[in-house]
């Protein structure tokens, strides 16, 4: 040991030797439980959630070339049966929905369509809505928020007021208004939900920018002579991006729920199976009574996806120690 140390000592300065040692030692010397909790690992749940999201995204993207049943085809089965009204026995269609079976793993809906296929079809819409919404919110809200938070002054006041107005506007009503009066295309719905995401993301970006711009490293960059634009992009953006993207994940979750809510009110993307629509279709009293799977299968998918996004967001927030609390509501 002695020898080794000596050789080392010749090569590197004492301090860098020390530095090696030091980084091995956890530098947590405060008496705080949180310091010692396993927050720097993402945990099993994180990977589980990621796995689910990757799986569902994979299925959604590649569903056209995967060997699933045709989501739009009516797989009607027939049998000899008595007409309840005329009393005659005849070849009559078995009344769908059909329960889960080898043929239809997760059953069919009232129109004898394969629920698994339709749910995966629904994932396409839901994920697309989620992604577009988050993208819109990040780009518009993030840009506005960061500019407001960094340049402050009148710009900040104006942007802040805009955010406040949007926030105090009942979101779902706004969504219904726009969707009811324009059209029910994927884009309209995404943009509408995206508008709702702009204010929270923007406010977060603003707050984060504001608090980071008060941190000394920003001042340090300024004393180095960095221009504002450079500071904004090089110093602030990387810091704002993580909280923003964790919020964006929640925005995705909220957008998926929002789409579902709209669908539940009969206002979602037309001509496509969306999760909300599938749940709505199955949630009538008689369908629920006789064939709960029609509603519960898409609900399960929706739940897992929303929960995964929520959980990921939560874990990442913990991991990067983002202090803001995000709250979703619907």
């Amino acid at each position: 040991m002695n020898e080794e140390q000596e050789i080392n000592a010749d090569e590197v300065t004492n301090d860098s030797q020390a530095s090696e040692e030091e980084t091995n030692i956890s530098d947590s010397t405060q008496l705080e439980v949180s310091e010692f909790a396993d927050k720097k690992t993402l945990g099993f749940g994180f990977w589980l959630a990621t796995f689910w999201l990757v799986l569902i995204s994979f299925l959604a993207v590649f569903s056209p070339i995967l060997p699933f049943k045709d989501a739009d085809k009516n797989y009607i089965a027939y049998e000899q049966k008595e007409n309840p009204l005329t009393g005659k026995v005849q070849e009559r269609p078995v009344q769908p929905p059909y329960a889960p079976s080898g043929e239809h793993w997760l059953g069919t809906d009232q129109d004898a369509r394969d629920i698994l296929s339709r749910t995966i079809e629904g994932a396409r819409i839901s994920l697309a809505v989620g992604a577009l919404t988050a993208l819109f919110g990040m780009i518009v809200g993030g840009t506005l928020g960061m500019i407001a938070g960094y340049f402050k002054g009148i710009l900040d006041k104006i942007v802040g007021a805009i955010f406040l107005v949007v926030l105090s506007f009942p979101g779902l009503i706004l969504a219904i208004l726009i969707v009811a009066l324009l059209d029910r295309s994927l884009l309209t719905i995404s943009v509408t939900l995206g508008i709702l995401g702009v204010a929270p993301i923007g406010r977060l970006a603003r707050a984060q920018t504001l608090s980071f711009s008060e941190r000394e490293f920003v001042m340090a960059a300024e004393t180095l002579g960095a221009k504002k634009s450079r500071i904004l992009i090089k110093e602030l953006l990387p810091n704002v991006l993580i909280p923003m993207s964790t919020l964006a994940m929640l925005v995705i979750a909220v957008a998926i729920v929002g789409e579902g809510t709209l669908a539940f009110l009969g206002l979602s993307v037309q001509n496509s199976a969306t999760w909300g629509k599938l749940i709505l279709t199955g949630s009538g009293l008689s369908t629920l009574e006789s064939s709960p799977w029609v509603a519960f299968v898409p609900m399960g998918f929706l739940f897992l996806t929303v929960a995964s996004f929520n959980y990921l967001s939560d874990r990442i927030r913990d991991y990067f120690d983002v202090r803001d609390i995000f709250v979703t509501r619907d």
Partner: protein
Amino acid sequence: GGSDDDSSSSSDSSSASEATESSSESSASEAAEEAEETEEAPAEEEAEEEAEAPIVQDQEESVLEPVFGGTLRWGLEAEVDGINPTASALSAPGLTMMNAAFDTLAAYDVDGNTVPHLAESFSSSADCKTWSMKLRDGITFHDGTPLNTEAVSVNFLAQYGDPLVGLAVRPYYSADEPITIVDDLNMNFNLTDANCNWPSALTGQLGAIGSPTWIAAAQDDPTLDQQPVGTGPFIFESRVQDQVTRFVRNANYWGGDVYLDAVEFYPVTDGDIRTSLLLEGELDAQATTNVESIASLAENDSITQVLDDTGDESFLMLNSSKAPFDDIRARQAITHATPRDNYNTLINLDVTRKADQMFTPESPYYNPDIVQLSDRPDLAGPLVDAYCSDNPNNCTSGKINIEYQYSGPSVVGERIADLLSEGWADFFNVTVQVLPQDAHIQEAALGIYNSIGWRQFGAVDPGIDRVWLLCRAIGGISLNWPRYCDEDRDALILQADAAATTEEKIPLYQELSKMINEEYLYVFYHHTLWSLALRDGVENVCGAKTLEGVSLRCQVNGRSFFQSTFIAD
């Protein structure tokens, strides 16, 4: 008119013109059935019968002794925004409530003949252009105003002048002097065209007479539309919109004893829920076209259903005044592409009967030669190609761009839209639009639509259905929803109106059906099956009679009379 939607979650037949309903004569109907049977080859008979078995259940009078008392709780499929026959566009639920508070001047008897009801008698001039009506004496409205010709004229003029209801009135009466008051009880109606079956026009909304005082007041204060005052068996008591509208017994009803203490109408838009409320005894009766409900009620012994599918037809309606359906090739193509079999299997559980025309096979006017070529996508392709090469602007990637509207939101509506779009997908790019019912009807009336789910025709007297077809019905707002004008067809209709007997009318209406079929304006799905479902103990719904003792037709598109009903338990 109305939506195609069989679910009860949207209300169906509606609009001003619902006021005009009529009947087919049952004698004629029987005759036709016989004729049909003799014509058919015996070998084919069974199959034919199986597919086309009539599902009309006979109405019965109660054998029990009527008892007084009780409240009848009636489930409606939707709330209405007013119950004023002169101003509101009454849909099926509206007409149901109307029957509690108002009486119509005429009504259909069990055989489908028009008989005087609130009026004492009708008589026409020889050319069937002037009709005289005599009112019964001594009838008063709930507010004490006497029923006289003055009152009727106030009603008539209010309807005539109403921008919407007037559409079903103005074109058919002389513009100078539509009515002439003779004395307190006698008056004349002056028609523009000969119509030997005119009183049937007074069996619906247009025949319902409200108190003139109330009508005048309601014109100033439209909120009074919610508080009807008529001559009917029940007097309006209270109304909480979307919850309950309550009428109480009219002790001085001119038509005799009224047994129930009160009738309450509960709008419950979800068919499942309404049915379940009925099964649980929370409701006593409902009318529905929801096939699932009908099937499940049929299996329940404690429910009696009065079924009838001779009423209106459900179909897809095309707007011939707007591209692309101004081109018959597009209309033909969509007819061929429509998956009617799937529709009937999935939406109607194959319980209802497929329709090709507005008459059921039992009708004397039924034209057995007419076949609508749906479910034939093979025929659609060439037509679409041809259309698109002529009108590239209305096509995208070789498919015709169309819009499909239905009234909602409704689960069944959504399912139908999915099903249809799926069937059309190879030839059409479909944009689906859901509209609340009133907007839905408005857009139809204004012709701002491509294709729309709808329900109408099948009036007991087919003459009534002319309002949907005549060229003169086309205007800024139009009841000729497809905005299709054919003068030959008009001539045919007027000829049928002027005909006095069924025999004269048969070839005319058969020809009319053929013309409609060839114009491809309506893609018929099925004959709407109406069910009046009553829980055990609700008795004698079908026992209403005129003062003269003629039994009235119990169910017309889901509505009935309340004066004879009593609750036995």
